[in-house]
C-alpha cells in the first residue's frame, strides 16, 4: 500500500533561518510527487510536481528535490508569511490521476 511519511511534524524557525522538510514515500510506481501548502481553515494550494529522481523545482524561497525514496522541500531565508502546513502527496502509476495519497504534513512557523 502507498505510504507517505513527513518529518518533522512541526518546525519553528527564525526569519532568515533556512531549513528542509522531508517526505519519505513508498509506492509501487510513481506517477508524480506533489507539494502543497495549506493555511489554517483553507484548502491545499499547489506548489510543485516532481516526476523522476534527480528533478528539482524552485519557486521564490522554496526548492523541491526528489530521489527514489524521498523528497525534500528546502526553505531559504524564510519569512513569516511562509508559515503554513506543507503537505506532500504521491500519485501512483496504476491507480489513475485523481487519487493523491497525502502525508500528515509539516507545520512550519516562522517568527520575525
Amino acid at each position: 500500500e502507498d505510504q507517505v511519511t513527513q518529518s518533522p511534524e512541526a518546525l519553528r524557525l527564525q526569519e532568515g533561518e533556512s531549513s528542509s522538510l522531508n517526505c519519505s514515500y513508498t509506492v509501487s510506481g510513481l506517477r508524480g510527487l506533489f507539494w502543497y501548502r495549506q493555511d489554517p481553515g483553507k484548502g491545499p494550494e499547489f506548489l510543485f510536481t516532481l516526476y523522476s529522481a534527480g528533478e528539482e523545482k524552485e519557486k521564490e524561497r522554496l526548492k523541491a528535490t526528489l530521489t527514489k525514496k524521498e523528497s525534500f522541500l528546502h526553505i531559504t531565508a524564510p519569512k513569516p508569511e511562509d508559515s503554513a502546513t506543507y503537505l506532500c502527496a504521491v500519485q501512483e502509476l496504476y491507480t489513475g490521476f485523481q487519487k493523491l495519497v497525502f502525508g500528515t504534513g509539516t507545520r512550519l512557523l516562522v517568527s520575525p
Partner: protein
Amino acid sequence: DAGVTQSPTHLIKTRGQQVTLRCSPKSGHDTVSWYQQALGQGPQFIFQYYEEEERQRGNFPDRFSGHQFPNYSSELNVNALLLGDSALYLCASSLWRGQGASGANVLTFGAGSRLTVL
C-alpha cells in the same frame, strides 16, 4: 476565473443525521474528487466522479455517497453521521485523463466544508 467553490463553509449536525455538501469545479475542469481531512491529518481520498459516474473509491463505507451533475458540479452525501465524521471535507477538480496517459495530474482544491458532528 473562479476556482473551486464549496458550500456550506461550516455546519453542525448531530449523530445519526444526514448531510449534503456541494462543490463547483474550477472553470474548464470536468472531474471532481472528494477528500476528508481530520484535524492534524492529511487529506484522505473518498471518491472521484467523471461523466456523472463514480470512477474510483477510497476506503470509506457506503454511508458516503456522491453525485455529479451534467454541469460537472458535485455533491457529497453522508448518512447516519458518526462523531468520527467530524472533519474538513475538501473538493478537488481537474481534467480527466485516461489511465494510459503520461505525466501526473494537478488537483485544484476548494477551501472545504467544516463538518462538526455532536
